[in-house]
């Protein structure tokens, strides 16, 4: 693409670095900003700068946070005996949006994958063990829920963590996998269907 202005060119090349944004979209966004009041661009730029500068990661669960400890970890309605382990920050938001969970979280910031050079030391696994070893409140952790992706890397990471948790003699569970709600059996892929039969659960008529 040839640009009539070096300023536009720079802006387009910066904006198009964002995921999912190509050169064309970047140009449209840049031209859009030029049509708006100057304050719109200033507010956008400032919010991005302070996001990058002032954002913190919770020193307990490693979720993003405005303060040293996040609002979930400090919330007084939360069940501190439960820790749900997730791969990354968006997973916390996804589970929070279900309104079905009232415990705490632990963000690993990835899953183990030797091919990509990611081992346990690159993730927040040791801090998780530490949380259980040295509880901050009087209430001890009684269950760790593994909510990692249903991928091979997710599975091996779950297994690794389970082994490390063994010494604490607490309950370790993993979220259920299988047929989506409203899903027809015949349209479910064979592998999912096969595994959900293998990992079937007791049916309660209560």
């Amino acid at each position, binding site marked *: 693409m040839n640009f009539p202005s070096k300023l536009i060119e720079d802006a387009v090349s910066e904006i198009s670095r964002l995921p999912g944004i190509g050169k064309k979209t970047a140009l449209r966004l840049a031209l859009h900003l030029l049509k708006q009041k100057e304050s719109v661009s200033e507010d956008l730029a400032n919010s991005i700068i302070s996001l990058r500068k002032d954002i913190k990661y919770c020193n307990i669960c490693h979720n993003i946070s405005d303060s040293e400890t996040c609002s979930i970890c400090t919330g007084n309605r939360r069940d501190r005996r439960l820790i749900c382990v997730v791969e990354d920050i968006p997973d916390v938001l996804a589970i929070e949006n279900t309104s079905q969970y009232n415990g705490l979280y632990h963000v690993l910031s990835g899953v183990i994958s*030797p091919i990509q050079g990611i081992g346990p030391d690159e993730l927040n696994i040791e801090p998780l063990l530490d949380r259980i070893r040295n509880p901050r409140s009087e209430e001890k952790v009684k269950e760790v829920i593994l909510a990692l992706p249903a991928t091979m890397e997710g599975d091996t990471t779950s*297994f690794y963590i389970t082994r*490390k948790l063994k010494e604490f003699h607490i309950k370790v569970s993993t979220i259920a996998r299988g047929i989506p709600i409203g899903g027809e059996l015949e349209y479910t892929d064979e592998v999912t269907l096969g595994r959900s039969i293998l990992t079937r659960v007791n049916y309660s008529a209560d």
Partner: protein
Amino acid sequence: MYLKNIRLQQFKNYQKAEVQFSSEINCFVGINGSGKTNLLDAIHYLCLTKSAINGVDMLNILHNKDFFTVFGDFDLEGKEIEVRCIFESGKKKQLLQNRKAIEKMSDHVGLLPVVMIAPDDTGLIKDGSEERRRFFDNMLCQMDKQYLDQLVRYQHFLKQRNALIKQFADKGRWDSAFIEPYDREIISLSKKIATARKSFLEEYYPILKEFYNIISDNQEQIGVAYETHCSGAEFEKEFKASAQKDFLLKRTNMGIHKDDFVFEIEGYPIRKFGSQGQQKSFVIALKLAQFQIFLTHKKTKPILLLDDIFDKLDDNRIGKLMNLVADHRFGQLFISDARPERSKEILAGIGAESRFFLVKDGEIGNWDQ
């Protein structure tokens, strides 16, 4: 099932071509290098989303172009299926069924069974164990999605484990806790895959034997020995015990990636002791048994591609193969031959409709007989 027509664009030496096929016998004739095998390969692409000859899609684009397309209309037991395979250099290969994009290639593979018999297939006997594992895995994967899933997982965990071992070797330290999740998966998948291979062979072997005896003159005893160290009770122990060796050699030394299928005649490996003729008969029998297995499991006759078969086989074996054709054991047939008169003569007494196509420099026309 049968293929009604094919449309090619910039595929190998074809700029553009379109042909209507017979549902019975189709014979491609033309001098060597004209594009007969390439045409068979295009059919292979439609069925299995890949070449039978080279695994690199890039090499199948007409020189100096940047994409190829292969389209074809199938009749699968009365159901119309249009398949489009599109490959553009630098992009992901696309496959469409009735104009609907198929996300995973593995969802297409297995729908339209195809078997190719080519002279180079003696590689199956002469080459290393990888060829033979691939032959059996291809069959199993097309019939059993569970097996495909297990194999894909196995290969992935093996790659992860090997990467991990290299890191251990670099650091000079083995970390059992870190490698344990991979050991566990590889051990459990190895057992499942070995069991599946073994039970598949129980079904496949009698069929293979039947076809070998039909094709070959002599009634030798043939055998297939499945060699694996993954099915014994001691496997888990042995796998763990090989850690030291793994550390030294920087790779995983046990598991189903080490399996082999040894083809035997009268108890001796055919690779070392079989005559040329025995080896050829064996390869044809392997493929015909594959045809039969697909027919049983898919409830449709696979397409059969016979590349240069009249050139590479003696009259005796050709005769036996043609008896099977005359017995209507097969469905749609595609044959390539450099010598049209010979093909015409062989196919004359078969009692099936045969259509001849003259292939010349990447163009396909009718052959005026």
